[in-house]
């Protein structure tokens, strides 16, 4: 059973007829009819690993570092709040993954040069294979077409994006620690006076004997922040080639120095098919 689960491979996922059976075998490992599993093993004799792939990007992106926020005056005097993003040495293609070799098309990019002592031996070996300088961060951008990308190719921001483009920016938010429901989920506060004893406490967390438990995913106090988030459809206000920075309208996750992943905005019907 376990083996049949593991042999789900990308070619079989592509095949529409076996899609339902293969996906069910992915997510419900306990019961599996023998027929589709034998089909799967037949269809994919060589690749024996399950795939975990990210969603498709609208285009190649780059990584950057948050520098801070400022105001930007447009030509007509309108003030725009912008976040300045800088680029350290990096944004080099470290690996090109293809459907034939890896089961999906993606471009792996490295960012932020470090001393080679700072990396582990497997990391160094992976980069040496591509002949790339030691880089701290490696991220993949899954694309429909990876033609035109080769390892050790340098990606320049202003060749990919221009002023006025919309981008999605992903990064880690500032960690807030253990927070109550009011700050974490925007719950309402109780009365502070008039004899009320419920000030910032949670209200009811569910019904009584039926269902007799608290539902999964109930919003409660807990760790807040420090998670990955993506802020979508932000406008590039200015690209400064001399300073090697870019100004993006609005706030971006994290504190100055935070690693950001900038990709073209995914807009359904424009660069993402509607189905």
């Amino acid at each position, binding site marked *: 059973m376990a083996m049949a689960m593991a042999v789900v491979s990308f070619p079989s996922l592509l095949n529409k007829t076996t899609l339902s059976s293969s996906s069910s075998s992915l997510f419900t490992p306990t019961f599996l009819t023998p027929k589709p599993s034998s089909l799967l093993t037949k269809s994919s004799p060589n690749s024996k690993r399950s795939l975990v792939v990210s969603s498709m990007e609208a285009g190649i992106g780059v990584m950057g570092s948050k520098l801070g926020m*400022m*105001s*930007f*005056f447009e*030509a*007509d*005097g309108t*003030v725009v709040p912008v976040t300045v993003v800088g680029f350290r040495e990096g944004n080099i293609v470290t690996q090109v993954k293809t459907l034939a070799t890896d089961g999906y098309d993606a471009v792996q990019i490295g960012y932020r040069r470090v001393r080679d002592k700072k990396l582990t031996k497997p990391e160094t070996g992976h980069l040496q294979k591509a002949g790339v300088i030691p880089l701290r961060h490696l991220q993949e951008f899954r694309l429909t077409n990876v033609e035109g990308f080769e390892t050790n190719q340098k990606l320049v921001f202003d060749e990919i994006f221009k002023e006025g483009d919309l981008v999605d920016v992903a990064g880690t938010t500032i960690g807030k620690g253990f927070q109550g429901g009011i700050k974490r989920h925007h719950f309402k506060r109780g009365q502070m006076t008039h004899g009320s004893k419920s000030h910032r406490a949670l209200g009811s967390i569910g019904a009584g004997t039926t269902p007799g438990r608290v539902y999964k995913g109930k919003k409660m106090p807990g760790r807040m922040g420090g998670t990955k988030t993506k802020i979508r459809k932000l406008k590039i206000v200015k690209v400064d080639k001399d300073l090697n920075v870019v100004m993006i309208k609005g706030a971006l996750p994290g504190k100055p120095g935070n690693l950001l992943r900038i990709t073209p905005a995914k807009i359904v019907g424009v660069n993402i098919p509607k189905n």
Partner: protein
Amino acid sequence: MRPVPELRTGDIVEIKLEVPENRRRLSIHKGIVMSRQNAGIHTTIRIRRIIAGIGVEIVFPIYSPNIKEIKVVSHRKVRRARLYYLRDKLPRLSTFK
């Protein structure tokens, strides 16, 4: 970036402001600098003067492209960084010709 003169609290300044809504006409604002908020490119000054018998305070971002000129007319000796006390004083102290 347009050069901006050194502005201090207590300066009496004349600001030529272009108003895009009003067919790009220049309007002139004269008054005393009550305070200055330093914030890099978003540095602002607060100008006070009496207009039609009423005290008016306007905040200008001094690096805005709509401000065409800032001229320091004179300087009044002040002993505060923020001249908020002018609001409670006689209108004579906020009137400029």
